């Protein structure tokens, strides 16, 4: 059976899309990541036009992050004040990102920019996580214990210092604003929530308590993905609700199963698995950029 996607203007097998949603949802529940960085390439792989994949993925992420935040909220693991400050940066980031996306698409370089940013960010994050894991698993050094409450770095002393009682932080508001901004840009350009870069940034740059990081990043991801979905809908008209609906159903079911399985997995192994997946995706994308493509040509049909 196949269903016709009204915006992508092509038929897909809903079972395949459902399975993709469930698989990525499972991993995201299991490892505590958004999974957008896996979903966008998968959608493009099954033939969905990149613009539709990115725009629709942001819609799907709204549902995934709402369902995730609920679980964290019940455990009081969300720092709303910090989240709101990040959000301000995020709103600006996603507005600029959507405009940039349209511009780059017209220039024919959007695919390159997507690949390059993926390789850059994924590579960076994978490297950081791998180093950390190496310390924990091989050198048997506990990273968390080493810290006092949190470490201060030079960035914390930038102007506009603000108190964040929930996280017990007194740091420059520019820092969460900047992190939110980068997150917003990534949602718009790469169609991902950006959790994989926000989470390490919040841990390493802000020095937030680890327990609050996932809930707070998801909280602000709801809004950046929401703003992006809306902006994509009114500028590129590339949000496919039929595709999003199938992905959402698969995704939420997978995520709930993943969360339950996640308790069986030791955190250091789950971080290692996360880092490995990020690394594999980064290496694959880098490989595609640096080796001669099988087909040098690509064709874009304008309008319809």
């Amino acid at each position, binding site marked *: 059976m196949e269903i016709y996607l*009204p915006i992508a*203007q092509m038929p897909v097998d809903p079972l395949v899309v459902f399975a993709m949603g469930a698989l990525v949802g499972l991993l995201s529940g299991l490892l505590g990541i958004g999974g957008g960085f896996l979903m966008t390439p998968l959608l493009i792989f099954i033939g969905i036009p990149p613009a539709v994949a990115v725009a629709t993925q942001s819609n799907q992420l709204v*549902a995934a*992050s709402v*369902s995730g935040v609920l679980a964290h909220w019940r455990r009081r693991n969300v720092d709303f004040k910090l989240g709101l400050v990040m959000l301000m940066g995020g709103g600006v980031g996603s507005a600029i990102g959507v405009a940039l996306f349209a511009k780059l698409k017209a220039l024919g370089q959007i695919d390159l920019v997507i690949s390059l940013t993926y390789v850059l960010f994924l590579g960076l994050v994978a490297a950081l996580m791998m180093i950390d894991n190496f310390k924990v698993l091989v050198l048997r050094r506990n990273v968390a214990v080493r810290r006092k409450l949190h470490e201060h770095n030079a960035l914390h002393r930038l102007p506009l210092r603000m108190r964040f009682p929930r996280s017990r932080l007194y740091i420059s508001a520019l820092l969460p604003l900047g992190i939110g901004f980068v997150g917003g840009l990534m949602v718009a350009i790469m169609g991902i929530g950006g959790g994989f870069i926000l989470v390490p940034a919040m841990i390493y740059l802000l020095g937030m308590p680890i327990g609050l990081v996932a809930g707070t990043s998801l909280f602000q991801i709801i809004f950046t993905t929401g703003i992006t979905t809306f902006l994509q*809908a009114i500028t590129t008209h590339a949000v496919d609700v039929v595709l999003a*609906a199938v992905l959402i159903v698969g995704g939420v079911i997978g995520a709930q199963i993943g969360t339950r399985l996640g308790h069986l997995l030791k955190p250091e192994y789950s971080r290692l698995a996360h880092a490995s997946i990020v690394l594999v995706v980064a290496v694959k994308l880098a490989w595609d950029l*640096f080796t001669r493509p099988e087909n040098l040509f690509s064709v*874009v049909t304008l*309008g319809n």
Partner: protein
Amino acid sequence: MKGWALALLILLAGSRSEAQTLSADLSSHVIGITTGFVGANLVLFGSTDKPGDIAIVVRGPSTDMTVRKKGKILGVWINRSSAVFHDAPSFYVVAASKPLSDIALPENLSRHAIGLDNVKLQPTEPLAEKDFAEFRTALIRSQETVDLYRGGVAPVTFLGEHLFRADMFFPANVPTGSYSVEVLLLSNGEVVSAQTTPLIVSRIGFSNGVFVVAHRHAALYGAGALIFAIAAGWAAGAIFRRV
């Protein structure tokens, strides 16, 4: 079936009148794309009162197509050069009663744009001959891989001396818009009679509704997509909490 018999009768009657040497019609002039659309088969029936060969050219709505070519810069493969083809057919399929080379000389086929080698593809800016050929071939190959251009020639079969038919398949990814189905009667390599039949491909029902709302009421559509996603996320969290 009754409609068919009637259509046939009309066609046969038409073929007897002296004025018209060729007449043809499609089994349907509209292809509706619904949510369950998996492609459509149409039958073209026609009759001719003169001996000759039949060639049918189906062209989809014209559109601008950009072909990009990757090149290496600093070790990275990126899109370097491009060509825009103005008013390229979005769909192009040929059916004929004989192999094209047996029907007419290449220059005649080219004049009437019959066959994949002769599709009219006009670049918006002048290109060097070698580049033109390269970009043109790339466009045709790309359209062929998604089954919107077809290299082969579908058969046109004669049922007796005057009546002919051709089966045409339109895949599920067929672009929407108005198509032209050109039926040509060739005798000794020259076109002696021609008839063009229109065909409309459009989204209908739910998938059309979604498309129209997404484009004409974009803000409403965006808001709807958001509300749906928030509700789905909330519901999932609430349901699984109890499980």
